[in-house]
């Protein structure tokens, strides 16, 4: 009898403590897709925020890959228990935007919180991807990167090429590649993320549209246009270059990275966020330079677009909780936090202040490769074609592009045929998305 009383008393006490502490500190759930070392860094950011104040506690939870995290967030929303902050990769942007009742736009969250918020402080090419055509920020950029050209300095020297003069244009890349092959390298160059780099960024870099309606920013009734003569020329050239070993296909996603680190190729186009990985795996000195372009294309070089992910605020929480989210976003955008994240991960800083802070610290003098991406992204004021892209069902379109490009490189289809087929299949998906989101 006595023991059960005691148990009851303890239970009540524990409950009371739990309730009171829940009232004192409001928990903000943040679901993200960073495992390993990046995950530790994410936890460190949350810890830093939790220590900086005592009204809110951000709980960062790793939910697996990008698609896993997004699916988990959607499932949680459907069961009416969404996290406050959900990290979504860039190709999921259109799906999130279309889900009007499921998200709360960042500009609203910030305005309602009353905290100071200046959208102009953010790098336009980074936030452009996540804003409405009239400039309102929908999600908070978190980890963003852009593709650059990596090259093996040792290989350049062996082939009699000047490492201080990396190739600027595609014809120069071909010339360099021939010399590298002559010097004994199995092939000239390869690429990661071929759809992202050689279709999406290729379009932005040459200031040509990927699709109508300002790359989908202007409405759901958009259509793909990446079968233009310039696209056909570039992809056809890549296919032709396989014969002379100027170019070699490395596989989907960034599976081809081993081709660069094992010195099968001496030039490689990959995300700027791949820098840290190559630093670890490459036993030779390498550098980065801007993405090559076709000199006869009138708009090139324009600026490149980003990949990566942003943080979306989910609907269905109380104003006090949104105030917590806004407080966290303010902390996250502060120059010190951003500069540290940028220098540690190789992702781009999201504010101009963080960029200047990093520069002032002399970081780029020690890591010259890290600045290439920023210079390339901010080369010109972004145009309609280089602000980003916003297409529904885009994850599927990426795989369609992989498939068609593989058919082209295997010689089963001409570049024109393959890109026409990809565009036709992609347009079907756009119509499907349009009718599902009416």
């Amino acid at each position, binding site marked *: 009898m006595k023991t059960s009383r005691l148990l009851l008393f303890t239970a009540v006490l524990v409950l009371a403590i739990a309730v009171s502490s829940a009232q004192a500190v409001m928990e903000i759930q943040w679901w993200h897709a960073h495992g390993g070392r990046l995950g530790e860094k994410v936890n460190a950011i949350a810890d830093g925020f939790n220590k900086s104040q005592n009204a809110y506690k951000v709980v960062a939870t790793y939910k697996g890959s990008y698609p896993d995290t997004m699916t988990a967030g959607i499932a949680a929303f*459907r069961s009416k228990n969404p996290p406050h902050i959900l990290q979504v990769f860039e190709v999921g942007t259109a*799906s999130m935007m279309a889900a009007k009742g*499921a998200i709360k736009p960042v500009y609203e969250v910030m305005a309602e919180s009353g905290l100071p918020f200046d959208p102009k402080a953010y790098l336009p090419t980074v936030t452009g991807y996540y804003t409405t055509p009239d400039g309102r920020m929908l999600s908070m950029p978190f980890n963003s990167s852009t593709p650059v050209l990596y090259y093996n300095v040792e290989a350049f020297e062996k082939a009699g090429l000047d490492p201080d003069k990396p190739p600027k244009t595609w014809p120069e890349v071909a010339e360099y590649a021939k010399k590298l092959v002559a010097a004994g390298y199995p092939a000239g160059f390869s690429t990661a993320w071929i759809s992202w780099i050689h279709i999406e960024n290729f379009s932005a870099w040459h200031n040509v549209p990927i699709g109508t309606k300002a790359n989908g920013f202007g409405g759901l009734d958009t259509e793909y246009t990446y079968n233009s003569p310039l696209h056909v020329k570039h992809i056809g050239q890549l296919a032709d270059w396989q014969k002379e070993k100027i170019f070699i296909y490395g596989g989907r996603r960034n*599976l081809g990275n081993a081709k660069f680190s094992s010195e099968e190729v001496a030039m490689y186009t990959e995300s700027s966020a791949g820098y840290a990985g190559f630093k670890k795996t490459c036993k030779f000195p390498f550098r980065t330079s801007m993405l090559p372009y076709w000199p006869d294309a009138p708009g090139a070089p324009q600026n490149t677009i980003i990949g990566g992910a942003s943080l979306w605020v989910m609907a269905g929480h109380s104003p006090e909780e949104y105030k917590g989210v806004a407080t966290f976003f303010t902390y996250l955008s502060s120059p010190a936090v951003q500069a540290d994240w940028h220098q540690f991960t190789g992702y781009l800083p999201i504010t101009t202040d963080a960029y200047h802070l990093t520069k002032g610290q002399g970081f780029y003098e020690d890591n010259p490769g890290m600045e290439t991406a920023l210079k390339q992204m901010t080369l010109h004021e972004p145009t309609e074609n280089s602000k980003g892209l916003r297409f529904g069902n885009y994850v*599927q379109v990426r795989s369609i592009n992989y*498939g068609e490009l*593989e058919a082209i*490189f295997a010689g089963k289809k001409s570049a024109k045929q393959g890109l026409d087929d990809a565009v036709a299949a992609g347009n079907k998906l756009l119509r499907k998305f349009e009718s599902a989101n*009416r």
Partner: protein
Amino acid sequence: MEKRVVFRQKVLPYLFVAPQIIITLIFFIWPASQALYQSVLQEDAFGLSSRFVGLANFTYIFTDDAYLNSISVTAIFSFSVAAIAMSTALLLAAMADRVIRGAMTYKTLIIWPYAVAPVVAAVLWYFLFNPTVGIVAFYLKILGYKWNHTLNGGQALLLVIIAAAWREISYNFLFFLAGLQAIPRSFIEAAAIDGASPAKRFWTVVFPLLSPTVFFLIVVNIVYAFFDTFGVVHAITEGGPNQATNILVFKVYHDGFLSLDLGGSAAQSVILMVIVISLTVMQFRYIERKVHY
């Protein structure tokens, strides 16, 4: 003559079958009916707007070249996986059956791969055949054969077939070995005394007696190849190159979980369910007749 056990109580037999029925209801009937319901809807990922579209998802699928291609890829893939896994297992079992010394060691080694998770097995094969760093790809190159499954669809399909079959060999081996050991020695000895050669003995005496096992394994292997091979394709090829290895179950995952096209994905899984059910019914109707129990 059938033996019948008669229960005196009315409730008890239902209690005995209840666990199995509850499991079937929760893990099969309920999700399957959900899929059926979802397949006639067009819905955005968040479930904010949902619209009844009748059979529109199905018409979309059957006019989609990618889906039709996926059906033929799946047919080739499943048939090859089942054929390779079963014939290799039968060969190994027939040989292991005759081993006297160290039989345990052989058996353990052959059964081992079954303990490996499909994705781990797939990654293993992926590393062996990786065109850049793979050891098998390296030796093939020395022999003058260019292996690049990132671009060559035929090679990619072959690789996923081998990887998927490899693991299933262990499972089949277990059943074949048990089946072989259940065959009375006297039958085989009698045939031997009659002067039948080992090959003749196998095909006319052993194999017919093994037919129930063979039949069971055909059903299980086809179901395995249709459903459980997802991890292999996911880890090695992701359905590529150019959809050469895009089997139906992978496409369901891809369209549903990556692309968040729930209606289309549900429609595909309904079709997949119909295919497997009808295949199993067909096997029971036509192949089972040839089985001697």
